[in-house]
């Protein structure tokens, strides 16, 4: 029987972006500190972290606006040391959109082709096409100032994509949009990324956005990567207390209390995994907060504070009342690091 060849390992492929021991220090501030990272070709990669965690600096290092103080970056296997932004086939959608105020929308979108010396007729035609791709056909003659936030965002996207970059960098692109529009844009960005097959690197501080959009997520804190993995991985199996807490606010509890490990170890228990169970452990409700789809219960279990998310019901215990709770030990994740 012929032995079937195993599918090629992903690591054999050239990664879109590779960080090798990259640091970027600003005086005493270690904005990015010895980061190793591989972003695969064609994936939607999210950099997630609180402000000041180094995720935007990482993006700027890829774009070439910053140079590493140590280590180096490879883009599709080529070292990018000292390469200025205009020689990198990488484009950015800026947080502030950075549309040129002295040009109309069409000229904004056509800018990348103009600097490459593409003829006027040709580049305007391409810009029209790019605009219709982001559903803004016919807006070409307007000024950036006459557009809404969501429309500006699309123009910035079209302007970046017209260059057909190998990697598209998005710096909190949805931060300034309201909730409805943000959800719509999330979906559209995802579709666009699939359709184009491009590598998207997306910076956000919104954990839900990162989890719902990205193939893989890197969680940043204090200039270092805390964990890299699929959304499911990060959420189900947080590597550290920080990740557990930052991504979807978890109950970080002693492992022996959770019933999964020895004393001194720490475990993560998601609030939605706690259920009200008449056969469970005794708990006192210390607070009850109605959130619409769910009700948040603050609980005290023998001195250990816990948060639970339960479905709204008429007979939920009120603050001050006693109840009984339980959780499936299989849903408890024992963490590598307690800090």
């Amino acid at each position: 029987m012929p032995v079937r060849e195993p599918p090629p390992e992903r690591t054999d492929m050239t990664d879109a972006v590779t960080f090798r021991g990259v640091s970027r220090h600003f005086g005493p501030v270690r904005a990015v500190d010895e980061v190793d990272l591989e972003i695969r070709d064609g994936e939607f990669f999210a950099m997630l972290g609180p402000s000041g965690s180094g995720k935007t600096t990482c993006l700027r290092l890829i774009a070439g606006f910053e140079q590493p103080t140590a280590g180096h970056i490879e883009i599709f296997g080529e070292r990018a040391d000292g390469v200025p932004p205009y020689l990198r086939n990488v484009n950015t959608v800026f947080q502030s959109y950075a549309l040129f105020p002295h040009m109309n929308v069409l000229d904004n979108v056509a800018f990348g082709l103009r600097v490459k010396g593409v003829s006027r007729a040709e580049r305007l035609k391409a810009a029209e096409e790019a605009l219709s791709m982001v559903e803004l056909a016919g807006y070409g003659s307007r000024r950036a100032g006459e557009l809404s936030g969501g429309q500006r965002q699309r123009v910035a996207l079209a302007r970046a994509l017209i260059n057909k970059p190998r990697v598209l960098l998005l710096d909190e692109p949805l931060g300034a949009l309201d909730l409805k529009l943000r959800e719509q844009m999330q979906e559209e960005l995802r579709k666009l990324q699939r359709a184009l097959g491009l590598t998207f690197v997306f910076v956000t501080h919104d954990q839900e956005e990162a989890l719902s959009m990205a193939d893989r997520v890197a969680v940043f804190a204090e200039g270092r990567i805390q964990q890299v993995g699929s959304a499911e991985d990060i959420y189900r199996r947080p590597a550290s207390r920080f990740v557990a807490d930052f991504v979807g606010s978890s109950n970080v509890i002693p492992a022996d209390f959770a019933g999964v490990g020895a004393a001194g170890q720490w475990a993560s228990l998601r609030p939605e995994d706690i259920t009200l169970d008449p056969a469970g452990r005794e708990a006192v409700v210390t607070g009850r907060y109605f959130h619409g789809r769910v009700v948040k219960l603050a609980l005290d279990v023998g001195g250990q504070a816990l948060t639970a998310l339960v479905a709204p019901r008429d007979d939920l215990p009120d603050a001050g009342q006693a109840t009984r709770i339980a959780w499936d030990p299989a849903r408890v994740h024992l963490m590598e690091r307690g800090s």
Partner: protein
Amino acid sequence: MSAISPAIFAPRSGPLSRAVDWVIRHPRMFVFLMVLPITLWLGIVYIGALIALLIQSFFSIDEYSGLIVHEFTLKTYAELFRSYNLDIIIRTVSMAAAVTLASAVIAFPIAYFAARYARGKWKALFYIGVMLPLWSSYLVKVYAWKLVLAKEGILNWLFAKLHLTWALEAALALPVVGGNSLSVSYLGTFIVFVYIWLPYMIIPVQAALERVPAPLLEAAADLGATPGQSFRMVLFPLAMPGIVAGSIFTFSLTLGDYIIPQIIGSSRLFIGQAVYTQQGTAGNIPLAAAFTVVPIVIMGLYLWGARKMGAFDAL
């Protein structure tokens, strides 16, 4: 138990407080009171005086008696087109244009440094450096320049030390702009004009550059623009309103100045000097007024042209 404080406090007493409270509740009145003094000043003192001047320019002077004939005529304006007067106008406008261009070219890098790189102490130093010349007497500076530019002056000495006397002599040998020494040539007038008016160009250009958001330049580079292209296509167009604002100063100040060309340069007249002599020694107020209208018209044309060319698009 403390007493319950009222939800709405009692109205303030005293006529002034009551008047203030009333004005605060009537925003239109507030705005009206604010703009009233400015409107009166601009309307009466400024525009009014200008209109009086314009009216003068439509009168003429009786050649025999030297008295002003208070009748509407364009005769005075026709006089502006006599070759002697036309030369004065062309000379002044050319000088103003050259001074403006040179100021813009020199001011831009200085303003760019101040706007993009200077921080804290260096920024303060920049402002002092730019403003300091404005705090000392204009006449002192001009006379100082006369000494600097004179044949026995420090500049000649410096050129000699650097073995560059030939270059200076070549420049002075140029027709029209040259002369015996820098202090009696148009070249000298030009240098002093540029020196004196430069701060008026630097400050608005610096303000315009400061308002250009840094991400715009990053976006340009990100999209593939080389530094030169970024400058031409993004930075320069966005700095244009500042350059135009600065050029309004340098251009109109040069058009109207009558002291610098009198102290430094050849003895040929500029518009300002013509106005000075016509309304002074010659007593020809209508012709002086007509000369004054020239810079106003030129500035009007200049602004109109700048607008047409899109200089204010970035505003």
